[in-house]
């Protein structure tokens, strides 16, 4: 069923002549990027952006980004506030559909399709690309119902099967031992860090291929943060993880590759150790050394 929900009729088709205006800096970055990624990346790309731009009304929040996000690795997106990193992340599972004035140009290719094509089934897309948000947002339901929410949407009704999914998901989110005795209690009664892991388990329960994390630890204390980071480390290899973070130490700790966004442009995208030890761009170096941002 190729029905799209609430898709604003946006012009997603790009004629070949439109893209790659030479002379604009970011196309230069993308050249350097493609060289780097060809030489360094050992995984095939899972998501590919081609001249991908995001507009809020007339404001261009993300400008003609070209990026290839490798499969089953952790990719961090860093950059100062308002650089478009969260906006870009949200577009990957089309959460931007919730904002009526938002539209995109260019292509964002996942599984050989531009996900902004009108025949893409958004619901199916979001089941394959899960998301964890900045603030823990468990539903005001029991822990069990929170985790079983996604599987139930997919039509799984058997209690035994659901219990099994709930247990597996909670175990992969490393929270099973803390909540196994109170699965019927409201998830809002948990601490912030626990709630965030519940949200992670909830996202894992639909068995996504990609996990998007929008500053998942910014509302958490250091202890809870390190648990989430350990978790990301454990999930590496099973899922493609894209994490937006303000925290450069976090990016260097958890990610395999790092993308640096600045004012809507993708400035640099490379192996994390390269970015943090030997960045090719001056702006990147200035940012990671704390000269601005």
């Amino acid at each position, binding site marked *: 069923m190729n029905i799209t*929900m*609430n898709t604003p009729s946006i012009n997603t088709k790009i004629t070949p002549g439109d893209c790659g205006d030479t002379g604009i800096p970011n196309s230069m970055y993308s050249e350097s990027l493609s060289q780097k990624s060809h030489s360094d990346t050992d995984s095939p790309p899972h998501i590919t952006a081609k001249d991908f731009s995001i507009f809020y009304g007339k404001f261009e929040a993300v400008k003609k980004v070209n990026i290839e996000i490798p499969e089953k690795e952790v990719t961090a997106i860093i950059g100062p506030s308002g650089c478009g990193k969260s906006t870009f992340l949200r577009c990957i*599972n089309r*959460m931007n559909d*919730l904002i*009526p004035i938002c539209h995109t140009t260019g292509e964002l290719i996942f599984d050989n399709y531009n996900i902004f094509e009108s025949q893409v089934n958004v*619901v*199916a*897309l*979001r*089941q394959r690309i*899960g*998301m964890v*948000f900045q*603030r823990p*947002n*468990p*539903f*005001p*339901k029991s822990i069990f119902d929170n985790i079983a*929410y*996604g599987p139930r*949407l*997919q039509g799984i009704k058997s209690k035994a099967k659901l219990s099994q999914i709930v247990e597996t998901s909670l175990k992969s989110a490393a929270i099973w031992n803390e909540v196994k005795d109170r699965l019927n*209690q*409201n*998830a*809002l*009664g948990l601490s912030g860090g626990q709630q965030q892991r519940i*949200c992670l388990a*909830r*996202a894992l329960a*639909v068995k996504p291929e990609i996990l998007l994390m929008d500053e998942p630890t910014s509302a958490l204390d250091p202890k809870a943060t390190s648990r989430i980071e350990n978790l990301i480390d454990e999930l590496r290899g099973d899922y493609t993880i894209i994490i937006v973070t303000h925290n450069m130490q976090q990016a260097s700790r958890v990610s395999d590759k790092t993308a640096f966004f600045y004012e809507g442009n993708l400035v640099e995208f490379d192996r994390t150790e390269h970015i943090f030890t030997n960045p090719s761009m001056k702006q990147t170096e200035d940012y990671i050394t704390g000269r601005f941002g």
Partner: protein
Amino acid sequence: MNIKSRNILNHSFTGFSVFAVLIMVLSLIALLGPIILRGANAYIFKATIEHEKVLMNLFGRGNKNALTKETAQTNTARAELYSTMDSFEPELEELINTDPERGYALDADYSEFKIAIRKLLGPRPGEKTPVMMRDRYGATRWDKSLEILSNAIKITEWDYSTGMGVEVFKPRKALYKGTKLEKAFDDYLTEDYLKTMMEPGWTFYYGFLTDASFDAHFFGGVWPEVIGTLYLTFGSMLLAIPAGIIAAIYLVEYAGDTKLIAFIRSCIGTLAGVPSVVFGLFGLACFLGNDSIFSVSENSSVAAGCLTLALLVLPTIIRATEEAIRAVPNSYKEGSVGLGATKWECISKVILPSALPGILTGIVISMGRAAGETAPIIFTAAVSVGKAIHIGDIFSQPTPALPWNIYNLCTEHQEVDQIRYVQYGMVFTLVAIVLILNLSAIYLRARVSKNLRG
């Protein structure tokens, strides 16, 4: 301003708030106190043997043997009074012949006296059953008996000597001085002897709630009104709740921010403030008669009343639901959509359950309003006297309903002074029904919120 005067201002505001709350509590007590006290008087009161007779004859309740025994006892006591009156009657005729002036004066007064006694004790044993049901029994309530008694033993006269009419009471006994009836005033028309004639006793008349009414509320209870009120309330809520919630969902989640939608929103707001009598006339024009737009029935019917009341409370429900849906954190929506929920799944599984407490608040307010509104049902559903409505008749029959009958009793009833207690009883019952409905909704809301909070 220095810190001292700022503190004084602060404290005086606290004082004002406490004062305002105190005034509110006092007025609530002043309002509810009489309603509860007088209303409870319809349920709990000192009943006479006549009340027991009514219960036995009309509803078949009570101990038949005990009643027969008591009736015999009171009849013996009453027979003394009757025989005194019987012995006076030939004397009166004689008096008319010998002293026509006093005779005719006594004759006129005596017929008034007889009416009072009849009201007090009911028809004499062996007399033909009166046509009006209210004449078949004496005073059923002790307070009423005492009132009639005090009227029976005194005469009301008007004294115009000061130029202004002043009501003066004279003992009736003086009028009958020297006649055989004088004995009745001394021996029988006293509170003590009345007790032996009426056998008063405290009773809890639960039937006031569950009994049908007889002879325009002279006897029986208010069950037809109660059941009518419940039908109208639940019927209108059944129509208004789904319609209101669906409309609110559409307005918040689906309709955009167009000028048309803004216009519709302000229309809903205006509709919430339209006087209820306008809705009543609208219901009359739209739902009744064969030539109306959405004809429900030829004459007024419960269904037409439900529709009218539903329209009346619809704006309130829409507004409350809209607010409640808007108050649901956006992160719930994002979380749900992010897991692959469709818009409808997101609304039905996450947004509506989270908005439920707010929606219930709107329902509580509307339910109280639907139960208590008079004007919308005057033309569409209400009838002054009627039987308890049957579910099959809701499309064809009107029903008595508490708000309308309270109004009707105090404005159109012939002898409302005789049955004030029924009026207060109805008010009390209505307040109790609204309170119970509200309390159960509030309890439900508390439970739902607790489940949501964890």
